[in-house]
């Protein structure tokens, strides 16, 4: 039951964060979502049997190793893609359309004017296409 509740809470929090503005929140949302799915796979193997299949352990009570192998692989892949997403969050800062443009611009202080100018150029360039 606690496993099901954890999966539910993680998935709900993940979906909530993915729907927020800002790339960092979206990335954190995906981290939670992948955790939810990893727990789901562990739960899929059954958690009642948890003995080790060696050192004289009872094999009928041995834990299912396959979901653990799945989760291990999935964690590595999710980690790699999270890194890619994090890279995309910091490069090309001016075109991040997940950010609230007006809100973040006002905090930029000195750079604000230059960026606004660059933006207008960018937009006029973009219109041509």
């Amino acid at each position, binding site marked *: 039951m606690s496993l099901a509740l954890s999966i539910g809470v993680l998935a709900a929090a993940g979906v909530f964060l993915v729907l927020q503005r800002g790339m960092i929140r979206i990335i954190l949302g995906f981290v939670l979502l992948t955790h939810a799915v990893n727990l789901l796979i562990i739960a899929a193997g059954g958690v009642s049997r948890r003995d080790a299949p060696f050192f004289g352990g009872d094999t009928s009570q041995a834990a299912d190793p396959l979901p653990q192998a799945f989760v291990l692989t999935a964690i590595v892949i999710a980690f790699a893609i999270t890194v890619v*997403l994090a890279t995309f969050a910091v490069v090309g800062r001016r075109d991040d359309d997940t950010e609230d443009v007006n809100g973040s611009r006002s905090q930029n202080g000195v750079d604000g004017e230059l960026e606004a100018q660059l933006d207008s150029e960018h937009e006029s360039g973009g219109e041509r296409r």
Partner: protein
Amino acid sequence: MTNIVELLLPLFVGAPLLLGGILFVVPRHHPLQLIMGMGSLLALLGGAIVLLILTFDGTILVHQIALWPGGISIPFVADSFSSLILVVAAIVSVISFQYMIASGEAQSPFIASLVLILAGGVGGALLTADLFNLFVFIEVMLLPSYGLLLFLSRRGDMAASRLYVTVNLLASTLFLAGVGLIYAVQGTVNLAALAGAGDDPATAIATAVCLGALAVKAAVFPVHGWLARAYGSASPAVAALFSGLHTKVAVYIVYRISSVVFEGDGAWMTAIMVVAALTLAVGAFVALGESEIRPLMLFQMVSGIGFILIGVALFTPAGLTAGIVYMVHHMVVMASLLLIASAIEQTYGSGRLDRVAGLRTLLTAAFVISALSLAGLPPFSGFVAKYALVLASAGAGQVLIAGLLIIVSLLSLMSLMRVWADMFNGKRHKDVELLAAEERIRQREGLFDGVVIDSDAAAAEAARALEQHGPPRGVLASGDPHDHRGTRIPLRLVIPALMLSGLSVGLGFGGEFLLQLAEHASSALIDTSDYVEAVMGR
């Protein structure tokens, strides 16, 4: 022979991955990059053709990884369906890579490596018969794609790449959850061991989660919106490459899962039918309203996915055969049309229908062939595919669907005629020359697309080009309504599209052969007992 090839099946994944890895340490401009890149893609094509020949008579090649007994190991399987799609995917990769070499995009860092790793992932996804392994190979396909999007971004804009990564990560997470659920219900993720498991409602729902995730990846309505945005600002050659590989691999897996797990169960196939019909109609309608060539083609692609899925939704021998023929046709023709869009954008710096006009080169021939083929006119491959699909729908009693297919084909023809009327026909205005000049300056100085070029510099460049090209042969430059002096699309950018449209003509005339191939492939989908037997090693 068969035994040796079976043993070599994992090489379709291993060899491209290994070579791609080696190319990472080869210096960027070393000729080895392109030679090894092209060589391995051609070898992959050759290998795929060998597979197709060996599986033609219904043989199923299986390799159990590490020779574990069937049902425990991860199986690699090649039957006539997967071999056929592998061949076409390899053709699209070879020709897209050739375009990248011609356009100079292959000079960007690591391109050959990334394309090879992508090809390896595609090989794995098409050959594996284990759902978790499939998830891994889809990720292997996606990671180099992110790199390609990033390195070859022509607008220096990350928004589209972010969207692409986010959508795909969401779909992959969903797919993984589906695989976990299937394991929870059935205790296995081996596709052959799941044969017929769709009768059990819990398994059916778990598998439907996987199909939902694949629908996102295949850009099926209502989750198709990301495609035009993400591919729209990638390099056009990359869009062509992805169009032949990513979405089609997802559709291939939908075919496989529907046939093995659901065995064409009526209720599920009706659901797919509804979604497919909506996809093909929505794609064609949206394409009508687009004002740039690439988004227009990308929505045609969405429409095409709907056509392909109609084949599996019918789940009659004729329907599956037609769907597979359509898939082959669509991969070839869509790549051709996107490469045509690439050549135009690369030369004139814009794909807007109202800015570029009066193109009269060999590209016109390629466009006419591909466009008519996509619309489904004889004697091109599109005619064979659409004729078979309409006949199959009518034969299965789905007269409404058959009518819809014909109406949507007319809509496609209309939007392609708009491209013809605006870009290829019509008088060339001076503006086009300025655009081309700006693009040349941008490419020379390595600037992104959005950067504004000094208008004097552009005008000088345009004048220089006009002088170089001189008046057209035998015609007085003044008063000729079809005066087309000035920048032409270089032949090297046209050849890849011409080759693909040539292939479409070939597939049209050789329609009998293509239908025969697809029939072999579909008979294995209808009766999966051979597949299951081969994979389980019984």
